[in-house]
C-alpha cells in the first residue's frame, strides 16, 4: 500500500462543529415560514375501497388552502423505491388511490396555514369506505381470496415474477447442480425454518420535505432523501411535471438506513405547491414514520444443509417467503440479496438452490433497510451452520474455517444472481475472512469462554459467533459522478451527487480528493447534493458510496491533477514530464523554478490564457467486492429469568483500506447495535385488525446508551485493488451478524435454539419449557 497523508488517517468530520452548534442544516430548517402545513388523512382500515370522500366541510374551514384526494392526481402507477431505472420493483403505487391497503395508507391530504388548522380539517373529511377482507398472515397470502392489487394499469418493468392476482409481487428461482440429489446423498443434514420480523429504521430525523416554486417557476424541493436524482425522476413520471422543471436539494440528512431511499411525502408536497403555487412542508410525526414509511421485510427462511461426516458442506437449499406488505418496493432485490450476499459464504458446495416468493399483505410496506435481505439470510444460515456443527460434533468455528470462502476464490452465485437481474462473475481479490475469524477468537477469548461459563449468582456467560459478507455497490447499474473545480487561491470545490446521510461520505470523499491532489482536506470544499448543481449519483444505498462514488472522486482528482500539470508546464515553459507535482506547488525538474498552486490558479482566473479548470468523472462498478466480517458476542444470561445482556461484541472487518478509520468504525458499530436491536428487542407489531401497536419509542424498543456494555472493533489489513486507495464499502456489513451470533450464544448457554427474531427472554423460557 502506498503511503498516504490524508487517506486512512483519523480526520475529524468536516461538518462536525457546525452540526454540534445546531446551525441550520436539515431539510426542515429550510422550510419557508409561510409554508402551508400538510397533514395526511390515513386509513383506519387494513384494506378498503374508498367509495367517496366529502371534502366540502374541510375545504370550508378558514385557513385551509387545499384538500387533495386521489381524484386530484394523474393516474400513473410508479414505485416509491429509489432505484436505478427501469426499476426491478413493480409499478403498483399511485400517489393517492381509491383503495387503501394498510392501516396508515394515505387517503387524502390537507394543506393549511398552520398545523392546528390542518389537523382540524382532517377531522372534517368524510370518507365512505367499503371494507374488504385484509390479508395479514404472509404465509397465507399467496392465492388468498382477497386480492390486494386488482387495479388496472399496474405492471412490472421487466420480468420479476409479478403475479398480483395471486398476491405475488415477485418470485425467484435458481439452482446450481442438483440440490435434492446432493442432499439425499449427504451423510449429515440439517433442516430448519427461521422467521425474521419487521424492523423499523427509526432515523432520528423524521421523514420531511418542503416545496416551493422559484422565480423561474420551477418546483424546488428540499428533501431528507438518500436518492435525490431518483426522487426527481419518479416525481416527474408520476406527476407529469417535465424533468427540467424539478430541482431536488438534499441538505444534511438526519439518518437514513434505507428508510429514506424511497419517496414518501414528496408526491403530496409537490402537488400541493404545484396546485396552490405556494410553498408547503410535510414533516411526518414519529407515529407516521412508524405507521406509514417502511419496515424491513419479514421473512420465513427454510434452510437445508447437507455435509459429509468429516464436515464438508456439500449442499445448501434455501427457500424464502418474504412479506413486502402493501406495495412491492424492493420486493425482488431484497429477496435476491438473501441468497446472493449470504450463500456464497460457503462456496465449496456441490449444489446450491435459492428460491421463493415475495408476497403482498395488508401491512405497512416493506422496503430498503441497511443490510437488506442479507441480515435475514445470515440469521438463518449462520444458525443452521451451528446446528450442523453440533450434529457433526465439530467446533462451529472449525466448521466455518473448513468451508468458508477465501481470497482468490469465487462462487457461481455471483454470476447468476444480481439485484433484480443477472449478476457479475468475480473473484475475491481481497477476502481476509480467515484473519477476521482468528483475530475475533483472540479478542473475545473464545478458547476459554466457548461454549459457556458459570459465573455464579445463577448466571452464565456464553459466546456465539457468525460470519458475514456484503457488497460494494451494484455493478453495471448504479453510477456515481464527481466534479472537481479549481478556485482562485488554489482550493477546490468537490461537487458530488453522492448523498451524505450522516455516514460521513462528504468527509471521506474530501479525503480521497485531498490525498490525490496533495492538499489538506480544508482545501476541498464538498457540496452534496442538488440535482441542479451536482453531477448524478444513484444515491446512498447498497454500500455504494465509498467504492462507487469514491472511485468517481478518485478519477476526477487524477484528471484534475493531469490538467494542473499541463497548465503548470505551459506556465513554466517546460514539458509536462518536467513537472514535479507537489500538491500546493509545481517544480520544474529542468531549472528548479517553482510555481505555487495559488499563483497558478490566480493566473488562470485573471491574467493569462484564462479558464476555469473543472473536471467531471463518472464510475460504475464492474464488480462488487464484498466486505467481510466475523462477529463474536459474549452474553451474560440469567438461568432462571433468561434475561440476558451483551457483555462485549467483537467485530473484525475486512473492508479494504479504511479511508477514515474512525468513521468506518462508526459505520460498523452503528450497524452492530442496530443488528443487536433486531436480534434482541425490536419488533414491529400489529393488532388483529392490522393496526400498528408499536407506534412510538415507548413500545418500539431500540437500544439505548445503557444497553450495550462494550463494542470491540478492528479492521483487517487489506487492500482492494479496484477500490479507491484500496477501499471497499462498509455501510452495511456491521448489521448482518448479531441475530445469528446472539442465537448461537443463547444456544451455547442454555441449549435452546430460538428460530424467530427477536430473541426475547419469553421465547427462551418457552423453548426451555418445550424442551423439558
Amino acid at each position, binding site marked *: 500500500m502506498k503511503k498516504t497523508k490524508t487517506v486512512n488517517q*483519523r480526520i*475529524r*468530520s468536516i*461538518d*462536525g*462543529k457546525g*452540526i*454540534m*452548534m*445546531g*446551525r*441550520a*442544516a*436539515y431539510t*426542515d*430548517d429550510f422550510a419557508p*415560514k409561510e409554508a402551508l402545513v400538510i397533514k395526511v388523512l390515513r386509513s383506519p382500515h387494513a384494506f378498503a375501497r374508498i367509495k367517496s370522500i366529502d371534502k366540502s366541510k374541510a375545504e370550508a374551514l378558514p385557513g385551509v388552502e387545499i384538500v387533495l384526494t386521489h381524484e386530484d392526481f394523474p393516474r400513473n402507477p410508479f414505485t416509491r423505491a429509489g432505484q436505478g431505472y427501469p426499476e426491478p420493483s413493480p409499478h403498483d403505487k399511485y400517489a393517492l388511490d381509491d383503495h387503501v391497503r394498510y392501516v396508515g395508507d394515505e387517503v387524502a391530504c390537507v394543506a393549511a396555514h398552520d398545523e392546528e388548522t390542518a389537523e382540524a380539517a382532517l377531522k372534517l373529511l368524510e370518507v365512505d369506505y367499503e371494507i374488504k377482507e385484509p390479508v395479514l398472515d404472509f404465509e397465507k397470502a399467496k392465492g388468498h381470496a382477497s386480492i390486494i392489487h386488482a387495479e388496472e394499469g399496474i405492471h412490472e418493468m421487466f420480468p420479476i415474477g409479478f403475479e398480483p392476482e395471486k398476491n405475488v409481487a415477485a418470485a425467484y428461482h435458481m439452482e446450481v447442480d442438483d440440490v435434492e440429489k446432493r442432499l439425499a446423498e449427504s451423510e449429515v443434514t440439517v433442516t430448519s425454518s427461521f422467521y425474521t420480523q419487521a424492523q423499523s*429504521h*427509526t*432515523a*432520528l*430525523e*423524521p421523514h420531511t420535505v418542503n416545496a416551493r416554486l422559484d422565480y423561474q417557476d420551477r418546483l424546488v424541493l428540499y428533501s431528507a432523501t438518500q436518492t435525490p436524482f431518483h426522487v426527481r425522476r419518479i416525481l416527474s413520471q408520476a406527476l407529469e411535471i417535465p424533468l427540467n422543471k424539478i430541482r431536488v436539494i438534499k441538505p*444534511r*440528512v*438526519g*439518518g437514513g*438506513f434505507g428508510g429514506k431511499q424511497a419517496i414518501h411525502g414528496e408526491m403530496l408536497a409537490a402537488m400541493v405547491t404545484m396546485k396552490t403555487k405556494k410553498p408547503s412542508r410535510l*414533516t411526518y*410525526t*414519529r*407515529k407516521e414514520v412508524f405507521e406509514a414509511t417502511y419496515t424491513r421485510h419479514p421473512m420465513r427462511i427454510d434452510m437445508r444443509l447437507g455435509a459429509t461426516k468429516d464436515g464438508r458442506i456439500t449442499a445448501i437449499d434455501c427457500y424464502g417467503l418474504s412479506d413486502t406488505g402493501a406495495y412491492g418496493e424492493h420486493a425482488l432485490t431484497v429477496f435476491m440479496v438473501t441468497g446472493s450476499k449470504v450463500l456464497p459464504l460457503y462456496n465449496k458446495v456441490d449444489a446450491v438452490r435459492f428460491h421463493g416468493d415475495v408476497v403482498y399483505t395488508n401491512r405497512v410496506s416493506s422496503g430498503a433497510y441497511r443490510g437488506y435481505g442479507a441480515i435475514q439470510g445470515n440469521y438463518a444460515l449462520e444458525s443452521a451452520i451451528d446446528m450442523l456443527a453440533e450434529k457433526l460434533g465439530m467446533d462451529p468455528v472449525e466448521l466455518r474455517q473448513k468451508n468458508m470462502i477465501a481470497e482468490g476464490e469465487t462462487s457461481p452465485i455471483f454470476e447468476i444472481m444480481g439485484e433484480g437481474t443477472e449478476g457479475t462473475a468475480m473473484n475475491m481479490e481481497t477476502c481476509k475472512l480467515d484473519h477476521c475469524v482468528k483475530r475475533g477468537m483472540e479478542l473475545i477469548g473464545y478458547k476459554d469462554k466457548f461454549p459457556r461459563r458459570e459465573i455464579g449468582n445463577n448466571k452464565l456467560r456464553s459466546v456465539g459467533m457468525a460470519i458475514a459478507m456484503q457488497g460494494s455497490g451494484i455493478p453495471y447499474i448504479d453510477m456515481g459522478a464527481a466534479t472537481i473545480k479549481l478556485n482562485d487561491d488554489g482550493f477546490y470545490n468537490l461537487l458530488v451527487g453522492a448523498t451524505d*446521510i*450522516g*455516514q*460521513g461520505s462528504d468527509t471521506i470523499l474530501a479525503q480521497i480528493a485531498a490525498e490525490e491532489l496533495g492538499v489538506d482536506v480544508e482545501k476541498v470544499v464538498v457540496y452534496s447534493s442538488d440535482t441542479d448543481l451536482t453531477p448524478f449519483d444513484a444515491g446512498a444505498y447498497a454500500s455504494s458510496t465509498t467504492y462507487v462514488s469514491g472511485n468517481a472522486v478518485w478519477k476526477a482528482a487524477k484528471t484534475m491533477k493531469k490538467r494542473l500539470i499541463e497548465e503548470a508546464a505551459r506556465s513554466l515553459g517546460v514539458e509536462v514530464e518536467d513537472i514535479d507535482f507537489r500538491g500546493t506547488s509545481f517544480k520544474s525538474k529542468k531549472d528548479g523554478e517553482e510555481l505555487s498552486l495559488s499563483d497558478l490558479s490566480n493566473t488562470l482566473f485573471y491574467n493569462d490564457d484564462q479558464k476555469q479548470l473543472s473536471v467531471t468523472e463518472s464510475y460504475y462498478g464492474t464488480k462488487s467486492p464484498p466486505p467481510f466480517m466475523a462477529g463474536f458476542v459474549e452474553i451474560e444470561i440469567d438461568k432462571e429469568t433468561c434475561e440476558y445482556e451483551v457483555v462485549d461484541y467483537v467485530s473484525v472487518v475486512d473492508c479494504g483500506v479504511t479511508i*477514515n*478509520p*474512525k*468513521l468506518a*468504525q*462508526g459505520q460498523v*458499530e*452503528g*450497524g*452492530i*447495535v*442496530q443488528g443487536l436491536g433486531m436480534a434482541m428487542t425490536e419488533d414491529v407489531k400489529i393488532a388483529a385488525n392490522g393496526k400498528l401497536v408499536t407506534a*412510538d*419509542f*415507548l413500545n418500539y424498543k*431500540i*437500544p*439505548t*446508551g*445503557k444497553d*450495550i456494555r*462494550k*463494542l470491540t472493533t478492528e479492521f483487517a489489513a487489506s487492500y482492494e485493488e479496484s477500490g479507491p486507495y484500496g477501499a471497499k464499502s462498509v455501510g452495511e456489513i456491521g448489521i448482518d451478524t448479531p441475530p445469528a451470533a446472539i442465537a448461537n450464544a443463547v444456544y451455547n448457554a442454555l441449549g435452546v435454539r430460538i428460530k424467530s427474531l427477536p430473541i426475547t427472554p419469553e421465547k427462551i423460557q418457552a423453548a426451555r419449557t418445550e424442551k423439558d
Partner: protein
Amino acid sequence: MNINGRKRIFDIRPDELLADTLRRHDYTSVRKGCDTTSCGVCTILIDDEPVPSCAYLTVRAEGKKITTVEGIAEEAERLAGCFGDEGADQCGFCNPGIALSVHALKLSAKAPTEENIRHYLVGHLCRCSGYQSQVKAIRRYLGDTT
C-alpha cells in the same frame, strides 16, 4: 423569557409547546423527533436542567432561563472536537441535545463516571453510533475541562 442570556418576548398561543416556539424563532438546534419525550433531540436547559421542550408549554417558560446549544457555543465547539476525535458524529441530529445534557452533567456532578454518562445518554436516542464512541468522546471532553 431569557434565552441564551437575551430577553425575548413572543406572541404565543396558550397551548403552544416550547419546541415549536423556539423553532419558529430560528433556534434550529431544537428539533422534534418523537412527540413522546423519548428521543432527546428537543432537549433544552430550563434553569440549567435538561428538559424535553416538545412536552413543555411555552407559557410555563415565562421568566425562566432558557439555554439552547447556541447559548453554550464555546463548550459545544469543544465537545464537537471530541466527537470528531472519537468518530462519534454521524447524522448529528441528536448532537445539540447531547451537548446540553453533557453541559448539565458537568454542572451537576464533579467527576462523572462512565455509568453517569451512560445514564444521561439514555434520554438521547442515537440510531447511528452505537453509543460507545459518544461515551468516549464525552469522557474525553469532561477530562479536558473538569
